[in-house]
């Protein structure tokens, strides 16, 4: 699938085919996409644990449930538990010097071994690690980029996925999850129960509501170029909007097949 279509096809899917397993190679692709994400300091902001639903005991599965993440745990065959690694700053100096040696960070932009060895600890690293808000804020943003990459990879592999909150109290103990891994999202992965359209592309506000240019001395809402918008329709970044005409009947069909509330 081309990039624009992947972006346009991604959506939060909640109806998975519960009987269809996900091939391990597709999970590897999803994780490699996370591994290739943008990240400051070339640090590792995320940790993930992949769990096959059917490898969990009923008690372990139940321990993950909360009011909005329950049915989904029974439908999705694969769970990826994403955590923010709050020790992401460990090893920063070594990684930065590696980047200097590789020509990624260059003297042209002010980078040197001397700066990393003698200055960055007090100037940058301790400013982040010594402030809980900064530590968590940066961790969340950078972990989010990795998770976003993995979502796109899932759709590129023909899968569906959705991010959920989850209860991690029990699994932390059972899996010996370190204290510095902070719960982020539970990504549920599987094949769509219906088609990949999953009811149509989700509603979004026009660009002009959230994106601006700076003209003169003020912000101006971004004006869309209709030709560009048309190109994005043709390349499927913009797709048929929800609800597709058959969506409500489709949901009723899912509900009757699975015995769910209608």
């Amino acid at each position: 699938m081309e990039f624009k279509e992947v972006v346009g096809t991604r959506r939060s899917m909640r109806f998975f085919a519960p009987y269809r397993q996900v091939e391990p190679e597709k999970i590897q692709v999803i994780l490699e996409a996370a591994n290739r994400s943008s990240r400051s300091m070339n640090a590792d902001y995320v940790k993930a644990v992949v769990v096959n639903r059917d490898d969990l005991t009923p008690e372990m599965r139940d321990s993950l449930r909360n009011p909005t993440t329950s049915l989904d745990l029974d439908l999705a065959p694969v769970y990826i538990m994403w955590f923010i690694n709050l020790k992401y700053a460990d090893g920063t100096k070594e990684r930065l010097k590696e980047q200097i040696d590789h020509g990624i960070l260059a003297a042209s932009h002010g980078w040197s071994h001397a700066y990393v060895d003698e200055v960055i600890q007090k100037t940058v690293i301790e400013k982040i690690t010594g402030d809980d808000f900064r530590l968590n804020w940066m961790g969340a943003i950078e972990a989010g980029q990795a998770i976003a990459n993995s979502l796109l990879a899932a759709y590129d592999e023909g899968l569906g996925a959705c991010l959920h909150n989850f209860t991690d109290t029990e699994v932390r103990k059972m899996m010996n999850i370190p204290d510095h891994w902070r719960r982020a999202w539970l990504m549920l992965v599987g094949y769509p129960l219906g088609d990949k359209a999953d009811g149509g592309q989700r509603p979004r506000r026009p660009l002009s509501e959230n994106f601006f240019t700076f003209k003169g001395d003020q912000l101006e809402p971004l004006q869309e170029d209709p030709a560009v918008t048309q190109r994005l329709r043709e390349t499927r970044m913009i797709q048929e909007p929800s609800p597709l005409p058959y969506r409500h009947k489709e949901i009723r069909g899912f509900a009757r097949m699975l015995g769910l509330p209608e």
Partner: protein
Amino acid sequence: MTTAEELMTDPTVVRWLRSAGFSTETPAEQLAQVHMLASFCNHEGKMPQEILDTCLLEKTDDGQYEISIKGRRLVNAAIDDFAATLGLSKHYEIAAGNSIRGFLVHNGVLIQGKPSVP
């Protein structure tokens, strides 16, 4: 004791049937939906509004409810217990319980049951 016929005019039932799109189905089909709820009400010795009241805390001045976590958990378990008494196959037992959950859902209680997985 109550019957499905009596519940057809209960405001919470009317709201459920309308919101779920059942109100366009035949009277017999609508009644079939309500039958399971009536049986559950009798099993619990409560009317539909009382079951909702178990799940929702008292309405605040701004007209909003708050979910009772404990109450919802109790009702969820009571639904499973009730469905297990019906002597149905697993699929229909799950569907029966989730039919009652549908009544709660369309009256504002976010609740999820388990699916019947083929």
